[in-house]
């Protein structure tokens, strides 16, 4: 196993690539009571069109299938219930599907090794029948229905629909009631056999554990040593640099209008350290412009145009990238105009170096505190590792960042032509 130590936090990380192709990360946290494991495949809602290694034809599957597959992984060949197995050992299991990843996880404060074996066993034991696949339609239809009424969720997907012409990130992760009706056991097996090959998967475990023993147990529980020798070819449609639309409003029964304003970022197509550095630069830049200590935030808040619900985010991905700010406002149009006018002025006047110095401290504090919550840390780590980023490289990239890097990044962003706004208005 490779071993690395982060001298700032004092934490240590082990890595091994197994012959099955599985990437294994082990991070002991000896004083912790809890432990956590996350077993993830680089396969999310955007992967509906692909070429299976050693095949030539393109496979196209219904939208929402990655999420459907996640639900069906909990059914076992012997008819047993996965949750029951975990709860016997006090483990709390869960799973989620995002745009780019499907993850299976548990947290436990006792019987770590038994829970780990349970996790590895069920994720490597697909069992789909016509009846069991059919049964899930009702549950997922309710999940989709729940999101149809959920204002922040609709706000977000309408926003993505404005930014993107073709990128499948604009589609609902769970698909639609219609698209999931086309899913059957054969399609699920096809997706499983492609994306759940261990060479497409990563396992991250952390907590009060012994690294050698943990590795031994992981290796013993690997069922299939048959790594792909070539890449899974994922087919994404071409995405123009322009935005698909500028404004969209939907009515839902909420008390006050909600807005999500954002800018498409066309500086994409790379991952690894370059993407890590970019995402730290973005964290600093956005905090400087939109953070609670910024002049813009203070003006908008004092005038009652925004309230405490205001927040902002950058999406660090390889194939798409955007900045968004969101919140509640009686007058979203005014927020849109004020923010764009402020940015225009800031582009003329330039950023403040004093702000940069202060915010760089904030980002460092955030990095140190990110080690606190082992669940959050594991999720961040694994999400980044699928982008070929080792989170232990954070400090190296962080300390390189200068004020002129931030200024240069700023100059390439926030073109008003690439700015969109999604709104939810009370019905």
């Amino acid at each position, binding site marked *: 196993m490779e071993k690395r130590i982060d001298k700032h936090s004092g934490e240590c990380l082990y890595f091994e690539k197994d012959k099955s192709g599985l990437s294994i990360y082990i991070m002991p*946290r000896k*004083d*912790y*009571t*809890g432990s956590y494991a996350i077993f993830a495949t680089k396969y999310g809602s955007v992967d509906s069109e692909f070429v299976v290694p050693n095949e030539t034809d393109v496979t196209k599957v219904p939208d929402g299938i990655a999420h459907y597959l996640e639900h069906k992984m909990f059914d076992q060949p012997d008819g047993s*219930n996965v*949750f*029951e197995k975990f*709860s*016997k*050992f*006090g483990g*709390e*299991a869960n799973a989620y599907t995002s745009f780019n990843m499907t993850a299976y996880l548990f*947290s*436990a*404060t*006792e019987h770590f090794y038994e829970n780990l074996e349970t996790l590895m066993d069920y994720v490597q034991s697909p069992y789909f029948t016509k009846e069991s696949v059919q*049964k*899930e*339609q*009702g*549950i997922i*239809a*309710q*999940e989709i*229905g*729940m999101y*149809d*009424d959920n*204002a922040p969720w609709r706000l977000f997907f309408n926003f993505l629909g404005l930014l993107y012409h073709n990128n499948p990130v604009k589609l609902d992760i769970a698909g639609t009631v219609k698209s999931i009706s086309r899913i059957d056991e054969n399609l699920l097996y096809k997706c499983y056999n492609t994306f759940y090959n261990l060479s497409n998967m990563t396992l991250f475990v952390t907590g009060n554990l012994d690294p050698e023993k943990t590795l031994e147990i992981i290796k013993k529980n690997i069922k299939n040593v048959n790594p792909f020798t070539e890449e899974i070819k994922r087919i994404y449609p071409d995405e123009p640099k322009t935005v698909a639309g500028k404004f969209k409003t939907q009515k*839902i*029964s*909420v*008390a*006050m209008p909600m807005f999500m304003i954002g800018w498409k970022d066309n500086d994409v197509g790379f991952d690894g350290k370059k993407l890590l550095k970019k995402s730290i630069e973005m964290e600093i830049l956005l905090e400087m412009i939109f*953070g*609670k*200590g910024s002049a813009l935030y*203070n003006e908008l*808040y*004092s005038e*009652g145009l925004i*309230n*405490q619900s205001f927040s902002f985010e950058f999406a660090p991905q390889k194939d798409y990238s955007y900045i968004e700010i969101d919140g*509640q406002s009686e007058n979203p149009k005014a927020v849109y105009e004020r923010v764009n006018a402020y940015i225009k002025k800031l582009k003329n006047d330039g950023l403040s170096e004093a702000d940069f110095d*202060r*915010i760089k*401290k*904030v980002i*460092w*504090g*955030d990095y*140190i*505190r990110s*080690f*606190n*919550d*082992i669940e959050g840390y594991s999720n961040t780590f694994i999400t980044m590792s699928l982008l070929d980023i080792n989170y232990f490289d954070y400090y190296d990239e962080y300390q390189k960042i200068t004020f002129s890097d931030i200024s240069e990044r700023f100059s390439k962003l926030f073109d008003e032509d690439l700015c969109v706004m999604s709104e939810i208005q009370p*019905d």
Partner: protein
Amino acid sequence: MINSISINENISLNYIPMEKLKTTTIGIYLSRELNKDEASKNAILPHILKNGCKEFENRTKIEHFLENLYGAKMSAGISKKGNFHILCFEGETISDKFAPNGEKLTHELLKLLLSILFDAKDEFDGDAFLTERQNSITKIKSMINDKRIYANYRCQEEMSKDDIFSVPRLGYAEDMEKLTKEEVYRYYKKIIKSSIIDIFVCGDTDIDDLKKLVTKAINNIDFEPAKRAKDSILKDKNAVNFVTEKFNVTQGKLSMGFLTHIGATDEDSIALVLANTIFGGGAQSKLFNNVREKLSLAYYAGSVLNRAKGFLTVNAGIEIENFEKTKEEILLQLDEMKNGNISDEEIESSKNFIINSLNSYDDDQFEMISYYHGERLMQSDMEIRDYKDKILRLKKDDVVRVMSKVTLDTVYFITGVDYGKEN
């Protein structure tokens, strides 16, 4: 585990060491008895105070101060536990040992929090007052935004109509509109000297140093005796209360309220925690396995227990036409428990579930503070390990006994505007 220092009759300082985390967390809680007239003032006051004080004059100065503490976090808000209405001032910083230049970060953060609470300006800023008053009204009105939370809130409101617990956490919009900054300021001066204030610190710090800071911050205040809220549980009504509300929604939200007839300090309260977990707490529960997994009626279905007020609510998001079917299934699962149809595995896995969650407080400073503060309010001061021992000793008979006391009180349902018009 916890080191409690009484600063004076009203104020306590409590330190829970947790050196393994990178941070130190502070919570200051000012507790009032729930009261209709005070509710809106309680709800707005934390937000007014965090707009500035004598030493840190405005929001931007406070934010820059926090940023210089490597992005320390600070928040103010309001919560409701049992019959208490609690003004909360919380903060978190990386611990001093991670300060690159030897700064005393926890000391500085506590200084800020104490200034905000005890050392307000001589009058509140007019513009900031109006902004926060508007924000507070918006927050009340925004309760309807998330129907899942709203349904549960409305069910509780219906259940507690004749009880002090009906006072809403966020206050009343119509009272809020009439508040003036002078009135809120007078109220602030009154409660700061006549309320229970518990200060909790969890992490890695020098508690003697912090004690000096607290003593200094309050030495100009003439304290008066504080009133402690009496606990009480919700009582039976004559008949089950059915309430339906219409919204423009696709999915119906069902929230069923049950009375437990057992209070937080009753001997049976811990058995009730286990019973509720078997019933609807987590993926091993009867509700999850029957309402969701067996009948595919819902994506979420579970129950939440309020120990202090003696009730539990069952919540599920369902197809509107499945209202009757889901309600019947929930009642059937309750009857199953009353009839003792509970397996050893269900008891075992539910115990594991609770122990696991209590164990996890060891790694989470906010959870740890919240647990001990809750115990303090209930005047129980039970250590976590005693809680665990009690859970582990419980038997099936205990579960059946407490569940047999549970009765249906309220059925609340959100249905669609157009539902029933077609077909």
